[in-house]
């Protein structure tokens, strides 16, 4: 399974390495801000990232991740359970945003695209929503690679 459990160290080492691999395109360089909300829930944030793409376009990128941590064994494991990855022109507007499923406030109802991983794409001037399977949802590095190549 592409987005399954990893050892906590590997999960964090890979996230750290991916962000650092884009440092040469960021100004200033950013690393994740990490917070334990509870002992089973880790929040990773990296924003605002100002990144210059291969086409020399300046884009603002925000990465927000909630990771679930299984600390029931000697070697804790982690996996992403919620995320929002977004890209927009600096200052205002929207380009694309990847979202994990989410629910109507106070309910267990997730109407329409909310029940799925999905992509909001505003690049045509009109919002287009694409549903994604669990395996098709991007890693952070795949998202950053898309931003670098597409804009």
């Amino acid at each position, binding site marked *: 399974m592409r987005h399954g459990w990893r050892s906590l160290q590997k999960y964090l080492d890979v996230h*750290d390495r991916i962000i650092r691999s884009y440092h*040469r395109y960021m100004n200033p360089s950013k690393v994740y801000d990490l917070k334990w909300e509870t002992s089973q829930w*880790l929040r990773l944030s990296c924003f605002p990232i100002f990144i210059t793409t291969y086409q020399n376009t300046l884009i603002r990128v925000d990465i927000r991740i909630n990771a679930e941590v299984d600390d029931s064994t000697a070697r804790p494991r982690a996996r992403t359970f919620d995320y*929002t990855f977004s890209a927009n022109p600096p200052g205002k507007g929207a380009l694309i945003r990847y979202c994990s499923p989410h*629910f109507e406030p106070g309910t267990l109802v997730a109407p329409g695209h909310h029940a799925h991983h999905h992509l909001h794409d505003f690049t045509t001037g009109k919002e287009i929503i694409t549903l994604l399977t669990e395996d098709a949802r991007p*890693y*952070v590095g795949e998202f950053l*690679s898309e931003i670098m190549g597409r804009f």
Partner: protein
Amino acid sequence: MKAKDFKESEAYDSEDTEGSPSQLYLDAVRLRPRFANNADALRSLTIRLDDLAKNAGLSVADFLTQAESSSDFKEEYLDALMLARQIHRLKSAI
């Protein structure tokens, strides 16, 4: 050389043993949780989401609808979307 030379899919699937830990992992080992339990976290995050909605002059439901569909990715919208997910998860866990 492009940054995409390093891929998560390959890094996660490799059988390599873990090498020197990253600073991010060292931070995770050092830091302590902000909340003692899910109920405390739920209380705090619910207040934060309520405050974001109030600041916008909207109900939580209307604020989240606006955050979801807006063509302006404001920080408070992105924060609200994550808070709503967290609150849902916490309610399910309690």
